[in-house]
């Protein structure tokens, strides 16, 4: 949010409350002149609030289409990438190409398992982006931008384990978990942003707020135990659909449980033990040699 927007937000809320309380002389609100709010704007705020109260909009949330998710997701992904250190490998790097191939197979498996309430498909398709970082992390963002650290590429023992992590992130995107904080925030923010509709003062305030909020959730807070376990369950089905071993996900989680599981991918999830129990542990099948060899080649290409 810009400094100006930050200054104006409390005033907007104050104006909103005053208008809701039936104050007719909004132009006389202390501070309005100092902040450069003209009389026309103040009148517009009052009118907007009246309409919102009548329509009942303040109690409802609204959905976002695929283009809106794309623009938000691209910005959230950039914000998350910056927080991860900001160094992505270029698209031409062998790790990028490999991630794209595994990721596309996973995304197609997920598409075969779509349900009516799922988010629309990413506007320009998924993007799987390797990030130079020692942390073991993968982050699915709105719009299908999936960031994967080189630390995670080194930590997986098989392509199936990598596919399992990607499937978990794709599951979050497809089921709409990555957009839930945004949709919830919109409902909470509606009073303020609705009051300022058409005033030209805070047009992009909400955008700025949800970029930060979205990055906080996808990178640090996670989407809640229920959604995380649901993403695990869907990931296991995606793996089966794509021809990978569904046992790879609990195997990866169980192996990294404990001290090595602190931070990154694990910090925003329920305990690995709980996730493994929900998935049901089973012994992974041996990974075919060609799959083992191509992962080894990619890992060797990393600095």
């Amino acid at each position, binding site marked *: 949010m810009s400094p100006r927007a930050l200054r104006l937000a409390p005033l907007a809320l104050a104006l909103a409350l005053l208008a809701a309380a039936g104050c007719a002389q909004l132009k006389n609100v202390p501070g309005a002149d100092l902040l450069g709010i003209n009389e026309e704007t103040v009148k517009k705020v009052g009118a907007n609030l009246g309409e919102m109260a009548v329509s009942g909009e303040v109690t409802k949330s609204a*959905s976002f*289409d695929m*283009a809106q998710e794309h*623009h938000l997701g691209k910005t959230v992904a950039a*914000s998350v990438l910056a927080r991860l250190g900001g160094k992505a490998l270029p698209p031409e790097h062998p790790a990028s190409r490999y991630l794209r191939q595994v990721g596309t197979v996973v*995304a197609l498996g997920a598409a075969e398992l779509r349900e009516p309430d799922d988010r629309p498909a990413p*506007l320009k398709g998924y993007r799987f982006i390797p990030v130079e970082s020692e942390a073991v992390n993968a982050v699915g963002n709105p719009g299908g931008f999936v960031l994967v650290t080189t630390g995670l590429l080194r930590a997986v023992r098989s392509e199936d384990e990598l596919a399992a992590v990607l499937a978990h992130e794709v599951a979050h995107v497809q089921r709409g978990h990555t957009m839930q904080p945004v949709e919830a925030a*919109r409902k909470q923010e509606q009073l303020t*942003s609705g009051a300022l*509709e058409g005033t030209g003062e805070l047009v992009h305030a909400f955008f700025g707020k949800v970029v930060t909020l979205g990055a906080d959730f996808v990178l640090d807070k996670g989407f809640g135990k229920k959604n995380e376990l649901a993403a695990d369950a869907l990931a296991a089905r995606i793996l089966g659909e794509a021809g990978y071993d569904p046992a790879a996900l609990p195997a990866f989680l169980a192996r990294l449980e404990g001290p090595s599981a602190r931070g990154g991918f694990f910090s925003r999830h329920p305990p690995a033990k709980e996730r493994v129990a929900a998935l049901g542990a089973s012994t992974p099948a041996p990974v075919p040699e060609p799959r083992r060899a191509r992962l080894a080649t990619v890992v060797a290409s990393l600095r």
Partner: protein
Amino acid sequence: MTGIHAALCALLLQAGTGAPAAGQTVTVKREGARLMKAPRFFGAACGATVAPGAAVKIVELQKGWARLAAPGGGACWLHETAWSDRKAGELSQGGATSSRDVELAGRGFSEAEEARYKGEHAELSAASAAVEAHLARGPEATPAEVTRFMVDGQLGGAR
């Protein structure tokens, strides 16, 4: 009479879900939508492609897949994710969608707002450039590439 009744029911059901029917035309929204020879994401692709904005006529529908009149001369299938979308501003708890709600749902979620935000956050410039590079030069693997990758890696068994 039974047939007419069934047809009417099917029409009403179709109208209720908002889904297109055979004979209707839809507009492609998604970039990189796959045209397949069979109604599934894995397998052989048609040689043809469809770009965003293309209007395509549906000949047959099958579990989310539409067989198109063209391109492909009636032999190509397109999944509904290529054209189906949420309506911006659609209310989650029902009720009519007001013009205000549409605007509010869309507020700030446009290319212009994205650019404005990034303009105010110089610290994101390198990361944004990296994401844009992958957007431009790192698209999803093509159907042929996916098939080759799956065969090479012994994925999918009989696929």
